[in-house]
């Protein structure tokens, strides 16, 4: 069953068209990755799905319902969460407050237990819990961004370049965590420059070029595809 379905979606910045009739489907339980060069429209697509941008044409279906035009906070309540490009850490709030904000929309009794779990999973966050978010290193901020979004218990998790600017070892960590999150039942839509690693964890991939989907397929097939190899895998 498809969890998310974009049909014919076009998004504009003023007069500049950044998405051109995009069709993308994300099946429940899978990891889907979006590849593309700088400026291809990946962030625009993620922000459109998460409700930060309104598409001018087309429709977005989530959980079988039309959600086109809903606000990000409304979508989050339905379980659709985005870690935006640049991570979106609240720099002037503490690590603990950032984590608490992840559970902002929740009123259940498990919030505190989940906080503990998050800090058990990422001990560095427990250690730094009263430090301001803005004072964490890039890698720590990414851990915080992921821990925070887990606090919101998403059904569909959108990650926009989670490995951006991180050292290879930490990147490997991030991909491991993404896999874990997925195995725990969360569907993942992943934008990455690290095409090879992204395709290795993903089930399915789309390639964007100047706002259009130019290729798509099973991740394994894309890894073997000659044009993709040349353009995105570096040989």
């Amino acid at each position, binding site marked *: 069953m498809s969890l998310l379905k974009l049909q014919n979606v076009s998004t504009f910045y003023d007069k500049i068209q950044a998405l051109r009739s995009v069709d993308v489907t994300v099946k429940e339980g899978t990891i889907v990755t979006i590849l593309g060069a700088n400026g291809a429209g990946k962030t625009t697509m993620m922000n459109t799905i998460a409700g930060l941008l309104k598409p001018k044409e087309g429709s977005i279906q989530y959980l079988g319902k039309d959600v086109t035009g809903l*606000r990000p906070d409304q979508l989050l309540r339905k379980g659709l969460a985005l870690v935006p490009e640049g991570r979106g850490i609240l720099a*002037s*709030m503490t690590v603990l*407050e950032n984590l608490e904000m992840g559970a902002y929309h929740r009123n259940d009794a498990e919030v505190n237990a989940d906080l503990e779990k998050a800090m058990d999973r990422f001990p560095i966050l427990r250690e730094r819990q009263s430090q301001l978010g803005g004072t964490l290193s890039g890698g720590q901020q990414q851990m915080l961004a992921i821990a925070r979004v887990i606090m919101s218990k998403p059904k569909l998790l959108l990650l926009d370049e989670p490995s951006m600017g991180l050292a290879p070892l930490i990147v490997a960590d991030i991909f491991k965590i993404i896999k874990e999150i997925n195995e725990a039942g969360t569907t993942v839509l992943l934008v990455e420059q690290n095409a090879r690693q992204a395709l290795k964890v993903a089930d399915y991939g789309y390639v964007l070029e100047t706002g259009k989907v130019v290729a798509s397929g099973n991740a394994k097939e894309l890894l073997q595809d000659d044009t993709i190899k040349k353009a995105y895998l570096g040989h």
Partner: protein
Amino acid sequence: MLIEQLINGLTLGSIYVVVALGYTLVFGVLNIVNMGHGEIFMFGAFMGVIVTNSLGLPLYVAFLVAIIVTGILGYFLERFALRPLRGKEGVSHLAPLISTIGVSIFLENAAHHFFGAGNQPFRTSFSELNITIGSTTVYYVQILIFVIAILLMFGLTFWLSKTKAGKALRASAENLAVASLLGVNTKRVITQTVIIASAMGGIAGILVGIAFNSVNPQMGLSFGLKGLAIIILGGLGNVRGAMAGGLILGLSETFLVAYGNSGYRDAIAFIAIIVILIVRPQGLFGTSTSKSKG
């Protein structure tokens, strides 16, 4: 004498703090200076005069009425002067500022119309009551003003740092997009912030009215400008900065009047702005790299 001046300075300073907090909260979430805040504050002062002097009701009723009326004014300001301009393509970033200037002119004229142009006294049943310890005289009114201001400061600080709604406001102040991705209905937070800031302005209006025993339609401008000076002094959008800036200004004005030249009293705020902008443009508590919210 010294202690008396200190008390006078703290009283004035704590009033300034309450005025400045109204600006700083709105600046925090909207990144605009609400030029209508001074006039909303003035409406609060007039509500105080009407309720206590004209209707003869007790002071706490005056506070309640002022909070309600200025809160409603704040709602209208946000709903009709700011919201229509938000997120529209091709709207200049100066538009909301100009729009709030329009509101301020409108409110000042409305005040002329409804309340008259002149000064009105603001007497309370305990205006003259005081206690004298040694050579130091303290008026009950001063104590009342100080206590209310301190309660507001602590209340606001507690609310911002400990409650879910307060945290949502701080998150929105730092980054509206991120806050909404975290599930915050930012539209509602913005409206709520302008209402809270305006209600604080209403309370400040009554405090000023009592402190100076005088209320008039022009008072919004002079106090508004001081409030602006304070938030520049303390760092735009910074709550702690507004508190420190307000107290510093109140104390230095009082001491200048007592030991120096009272003619320059109103100049201090603006001299302080000039010095701060040269020495520390981000304000006492502001950070230069990003806008900081305390």
